[in-house]
């Protein structure tokens, strides 16, 4: 399983703070994003950043191991 986290405005649009996506060999961050964006287009409109296992990820072709934790995040507004 891949655990997908949402926060703030994205969580509000999705209606959940976390979802699970089935892991399959070769799955990449972009695949997870595409799958969820199709289900939650309104939430993904405001997604700007992705993280895997607590680290910023810029290259969406990153392969994901089983039990990875990923997050799709809106622009930050802390401070």
């Amino acid at each position, binding site marked *: 399983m891949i655990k997908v*986290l949402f*926060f*703030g*405005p994205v*969580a*509000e649009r999705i209606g959940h703070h976390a979802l699970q996506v089935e892991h399959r060999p070769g799955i990449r961050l972009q695949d997870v994003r595409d799958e969820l964006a199709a289900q939650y287009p309104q939430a993904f409109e405001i997604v700007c*950043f992705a*993280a895997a296992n*607590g*680290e*910023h990820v810029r290259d969406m072709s990153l392969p994901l191991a089983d039990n990875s934790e990923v*997050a799709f*995040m*809106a*622009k*930050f*507004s*802390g*401070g």
Partner: protein
Amino acid sequence: MKEAVRIQQEDFSQDEEIRALQASSKRIGGIATFLGCARDFSEGREVSEISFDAYGSMALSELEKLRNDAIEKYGLLDARIVHRIGTVKGGENIVFIAAGAEHRVAALEACRWMIDELKQRVPIWKKEITPQGEAWVTPHP
């Protein structure tokens, strides 16, 4: 002694943070700080409180990286960052950053760099609660 980088619900004391910074080195000649507060008015709307959501573990590790980067980049003697989460009322404290260096220029520049970077790097989101309703804040580019 409290940790130099923290995310917490409760308010903080600037005197206490500054004392902790000063205790780290007697060579500190200048300490620059930035305190972000909840305004009771934003973009023409009254704001009664601000509520924060954060990706807690990542936010903390990003803040720790930010502190280390600032110490290295500006040759600081020490730095501290505290960010509140949960609910903060108008006029209350949100974030505190302090940079201590031998000379003032490094302290002032590092403090400014840290608050600018914090806003870019750290996964925290704020929602303004007004008498007319609630809205997540969209940062300006």
